[in-house]
């Protein structure tokens, strides 16, 4: 039957999509430009990767406010981090602490 065949197919597709995201996670890009994290607030799920791309001519860091991680981001570089814990986590740049950002991390 046509209708049920369609729903079985969409179920399979959703299941496949779920497996794929559980495996690889998504990459969420945060640009660092003119002394700001853009966007300053991003949502992610456990297992996703946050990638910071520093297009400024000076070095920055992405440093977790709770001390969990501290990523050096030299001028023109990019740095990645896989998020491992759900929750709201603030971060900042150690060199320019008025640069701040927030990760909203949900369960997988």
């Amino acid at each position, binding site marked *: 039957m046509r209708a049920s065949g369609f729903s079985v197919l969409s179920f399979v597709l959703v299941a496949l999509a779920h497996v794929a995201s559980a495996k690889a996670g998504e990459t969420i890009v945060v640009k660092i430009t003119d002394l700001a994290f853009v966007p300053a607030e991003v949502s992610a799920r456990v297992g996703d990767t946050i990638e910071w791309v520093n297009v400024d001519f000076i*070095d920055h860091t992405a440093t977790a406010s709770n001390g969990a991680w501290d990523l050096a981001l030299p001028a023109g570089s990019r740095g990645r981090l896989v998020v491992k814990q759900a929750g709201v986590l603030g971060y900042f740049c*150690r*060199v*320019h602490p008025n640069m701040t950002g927030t990760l909203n991390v949900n369960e997988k």
Partner: protein
Amino acid sequence: MRHPKALYAIAAVLLTVPGGLAFAAGAGPSDAQIAHIAYTAGDLDIKAAELALEKSQSKTVRAFADDMVRDHKAVNDKALALVKKLNVSPEDNDTSKSLVKDADEKRAHLATLSGAAFDKAYVENEVAYHKAVNGALETTLIPSSDNGELKSLLETGLKIFQGHLKHAEHLAGSLK
């Protein structure tokens, strides 16, 4: 010992520049003078940081000084590339001269200190110095600059130095 008041005097000199003795009334500093003042201010902060790297044993103070050398060099390199591109020769002026004179005296005083006393005095001076320079950028140097690229570089510089000010304030709080 020099009173922090002396530092606010730098701010006062810079802030009163447009109507003051350094520049023709109403004209404000020229781009060639602004470039010289901004470059000089950065260079003086690098010199203070180099002194801190010679003298301080504190890991956090040394890390801050490393940041100052790296950032101010990066900004000054940009400034040099820009004046070259614009074919402008930075022009010495009374504001630059008073900045140099005051910073030289301050460094001579810091050189007589050591240990925790040095760290505290260096970091407190960094707070006052960045406040003074940022104030001058906001009220005089940025509004007076005619060239768009120079203005834009000064605006980026201001954001960088506002970051340094906050960092220095945190550090000063932790040394108390």
